[in-house]
């Protein structure tokens, strides 16, 4: 049988809901089998329906346990769930121990849940290179929600943001300095923040610190309006309609700065000045914002995943974020952007592969590589030469 025929056969089984076929499809994709592309062609029209949720955060934050609970809660709401958990590959042997299943005991035999562990396979980021395509197959299979859990290190945050509709960043209390370090990377990509293991000391402080950083981060932006317009916990934020002098979150941020007590008077003054300017911007925009100007102020939630505490609220917020994407036109915009990116990526990969293959076949590649290695030729000139002679032929 030709790869196309094997793909068609597996696709038929996939459409009939055969979970073994689904598992085998993922294996093809992971291995870059020749059937995989043919299958993905067939699968593509069926994709684009699932809510893809990324779960990221530092190792030890309890991501898998939270994912297990999120899956249970999604099931309780009548949705089917697929879970993709990525673990690192040993750089020495290429092997891996994929242990996420241990933490997902609640839903293991539920026919509405499907879980797959992937090894990162040498990819430096926190996702396996095949993750996006694996998600496509799961989406086409008909799962309502797909939870993608990253390794939690490297470039996973950025990659997960590109893959997921909603990114959930998990932290734990007492990260201390680490929170400073993650703020730059993680703060910008999180749509929902979860402080897990919130029964430990320092949970409130961690939540406050994230809230504060989020508030500061959202200060100077256009469309600081909160979605949806409702007062935050503690009454710090005000609805856009109130048209207050301070933007929502600003006074809350001030109070949090105060409460944490770790900031000098100069910090406070600086923060206050910044906010005042932001408040002017905000006031100008109040009431005039069109849906696209409304931005999402990520909520910060507390959970104790091992006991299931706070998990319902997390799912509520994930749902809300999906509504936000849909009602502000972002879901559609995202589809366009994803399509463009995907095309760009594929064209790039294929053009590069075809060009290099031809250069190799002609014996040019080896020659040029040697010259570059021996410093007789610079790599830029060599690349131009390959493109001139072998590209698009």
């Amino acid at each position: 049988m030709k790869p196309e025929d094997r793909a068609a056969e597996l696709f038929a089984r996939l459409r009939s809901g055969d979970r073994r076929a689904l598992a085998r499809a993922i294996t093809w994709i992971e291995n870059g089998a020749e059937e995989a592309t043919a299958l993905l062609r067939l699968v593509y029209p069926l994709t684009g329906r699932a809510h893809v949720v990324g779960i990221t955060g530092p190792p030890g934050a309890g991501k898998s346990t939270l994912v297990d609970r999120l899956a249970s809660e999604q099931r309780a709401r009548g949705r089917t769930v697929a879970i993709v958990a990525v673990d690192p590959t040993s750089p020495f042997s290429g092997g891996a121990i994929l242990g996420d299943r241990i933490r997902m005991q609640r839903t293991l035999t539920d026919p509405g849940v499907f879980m797959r562990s992937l090894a990162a396979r040498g990819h430096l980021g926190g996702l396996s290179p095949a993750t996006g395509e694996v998600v496509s197959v799961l989406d086409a299979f008909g799962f309502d929600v797909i939870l993608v859990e990253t390794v939690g290190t490297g470039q996973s945050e950025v990659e997960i943001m590109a893959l997921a509709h909603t990114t959930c960043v998990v932290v734990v209390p007492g990260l201390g300095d680490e929170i400073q370090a993650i703020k730059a990377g993680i703060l910008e990509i999180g749509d929902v923040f979860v402080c897990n293991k919130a029964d430990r000391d320092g949970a409130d402080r961690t939540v406050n610190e994230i809230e504060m950083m989020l508030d500061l981060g959202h200060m100077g932006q256009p469309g600081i309006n909160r979605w949806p317009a409702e007062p935050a916990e503690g009454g710090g934020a005000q609805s856009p309609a109130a048209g207050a002098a301070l933007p929502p979150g600003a006074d809350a941020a001030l109070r949090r700065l105060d409460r944490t007590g770790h900031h000098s008077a100069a910090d406070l003054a600086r923060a206050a000045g910044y906010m005042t300017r932001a408040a002017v911007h905000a006031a100008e925009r109040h009431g005039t914002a069109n849906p696209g100007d409304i931005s999402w102020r990520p909520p910060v939630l507390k959970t104790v995943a091992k006991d299931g505490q706070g998990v319902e609220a997390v799912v509520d917020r994930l749902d809300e974020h999906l509504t936000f994407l849909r009602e502000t036109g972002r879901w559609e915009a995202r589809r366009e952007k994803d399509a463009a990116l995907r095309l760009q990526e594929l064209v790039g990969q294929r053009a590069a592969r075809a060009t290099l293959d031809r250069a190799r076949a002609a014996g040019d590649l080896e020659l040029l590589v040697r010259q570059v290695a021996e410093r007789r030729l610079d790599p830029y000139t060599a690349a131009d030469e390959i493109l001139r002679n072998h590209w698009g032929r």
Partner: protein
Amino acid sequence: MEAASGRRIRVLVAKLGLDAHDRGAKVVARAYRDAGFEVIYTGLYQRPEAVAAAAIQEDVDVVAVSSLAGAHGVLIPQLIQLLREQGVDDVLILAGGIIPEDEVPALLEAGVSRVFGPGSDLEEIIEYTRENVKR
């Protein structure tokens, strides 16, 4: 470890039933990893249904069951039965641990390919696995 087709061999290391002894399972899991296999470890106290579901969803080439509590005679055949009912016939099934010699034939009969007793050489387990994966 890559099979002939250029893919990584995936192994499910499983602990069935109420058997709490996990030293051997963990050592074997590490040995597989260090030999380049991808290992999915189930954790302790698994029901045969959960192990079968994991084997299917993870699309593993090998299921390696570690048993030191004497329930292998009941639970391993149950697991194999569940796999067969769901149409799985291309998975290599291995057993290891404290399994008395005279209980080995029944396990082989049930569909276990090989039983590795105490003191088995890790290299031998890996070599056997590499040579006998079914796909």
